[in-house]
């Protein structure tokens, strides 16, 4: 019964991971990371149901709080670099190499 949810969460995680690798806009990359975190939440809640304990559901709340904190930091950093470069593309940020 819970297998479907686990498959869905794995799919969401994979979509997020591929998105991080192929998308070029820092905001979209960051949204893909958030998608991965939400896929984790789905997995936690499903496993909590499967094991019949509440740990997984409580962890999901912690993950939401951490994700919110990450959004604050992440958007601050991305807005900072956008204001400097007039672009949020991760390809344009290429000064540091080799």
């Amino acid at each position, binding site marked *: 019964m819970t297998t479907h949810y686990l498959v869905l969460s794995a799919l969401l995680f994979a979509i997020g991971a591929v998105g991080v690798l192929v998308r070029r806009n820092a905001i979209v990359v960051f949204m893909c990371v958030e998608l991965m975190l939400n896929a984790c939440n789905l997995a936690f809640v499903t496993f909590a149901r499967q094991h019949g304990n509440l740990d997984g559901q409580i962890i999901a709340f912690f993950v939401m709080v951490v994700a919110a904190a990450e959004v604050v930091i992440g958007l601050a*950093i991305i807005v900072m670099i956008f204001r400097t470069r007039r672009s949020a593309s991760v390809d344009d940020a290429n000064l540091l190499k080799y």
Partner: protein
Amino acid sequence: MNGTTIQAPTIEYALLSPMLLVFGAAIIGVLVEAFAPRYLRKSIHVPLTLLALVGAFVTTILTALNGLPTVAAAMGAVAVDGPSLFIWGVILILAFICTLLINDDDQFVAQAAAVPGSVDEEEAVRHGYAQTEVYPLMLFSVGGMLLFAASNDLLVMFVALEVMSLPLYLLCGLARRRRLLSQEASVKYFLLGAFSSAFFLYGMALVYGYAGSVDLKTISTAISSVSGQEPLLLIGTAMLGVGLLFKIGAAPFQAWKPDVYQGAPTAVTALMASTVLVAAFGAVLRVFWVALGGYEWNWQPLMWGVAILTMIVGAILAITQTDIKRMLAYSSIAHGGFLLTGVIAIGTIKQDQQALSAILFYLAAYGFTTVGAFAVVTMVRDAGGEAGHLSRWAGLGKRSPVLAGIFAFFLLAFAGIPLTSGFFAKYAVFAAAISGGALPLVIVGAVSSAIAAFFYVRVIVLMFFSEPAADGPTIAAPTVGTSAVVALAAAATVVLGVFPQPVLDLADQAASALFIR
């Protein structure tokens, strides 16, 4: 679980006091930012930060003297045991030294919100603004490190990982000069860090699905009792490994390290290169030894590959670098690989004790040397700030023999020459790896040490046997803070290299009871 009465959890405040002190001071720092007038802030922050770190260090020592607890604190969430206390002590001393370095000079941007090169920025500089949020951010990060190394529960470990990392992402973007590089480092570190922590979290979800709990002890007992769910545990272990090895900068996940180390303000680089590595190894040991200790036959082969790749990639790519901070970053990657050979050397209890004590000693020795090396980097400057390019360092030994001599000494310690701390550290880790049956790893380690020694010596030759450039960099007159940092780091490197016994004994003692579960 479903009972109607809820028992209040017991929390051992005395055992957790080092962390509580650091977090408390960080929160006071935020209040200072909110309420104190701008001109007063720095003079409040610096003593507050230093006092908090000293206080936390003293309480750590007191806890250690009172005898180690045998059960994990805070309802099994935080393990305050020998290794934790040793790692806390090392992190707190290193953070103290880094605070002196951070405080010392205006390395931080006047106003982070002002666009580089804009009128706003000029105005902020003219008014003498300073981004004093650096201090509370650093304290939050240090608090996260303390918790990260002592967490006995994957959830606490994840939260600690984020508390440690989020302030660092911001700190990376606050360099005063070369702000484009700094901002780029910040974006790269943030996106890759968030990506890797998502992997850690999914790994945690799968391990929870396997064991029904995220408690490290429950996971370790589940490994021998739960059957038929092997794929969950296997994939979960791999993903937890990705998240943790990213923080160490082990080889397939090392790409961020040179970029971030180069772009970040050098004082922050020193903090990351020393304390974060220490904390991350504490967490790696806890996950792989405590939770997955009974599963070693499955993770060891992969870890072998990672360790070999890390040592080789770190040593070989360092040769091709032309920037001093990037070179030190690759050297730090290689050292991460040497430390991983100790993580692999798990076996009998006696074997574990030897390996753990070796790793603890290595972390202490490497931490001091690396802070010293980055402190020297802050002092070699030209018009645009620090002179990062290696060609600018040519002939430094003729202009400033003392500084170049100390830097050469740090490099020799990285290379592991006898009479420096690096020698005993490497010897201890490799000896533990040999007795753990990882002889091929030690051979790879010795070869990559030799390769690494080549580029350390190349820098020394460049400093002492090349003609200085006519418009070469100036040596900033050493201020009290920076010279104290360099002196402390050099002293620690000498002492750990000549009389390592007291610290070795301390590490042995910390490792004697291994981790509590």
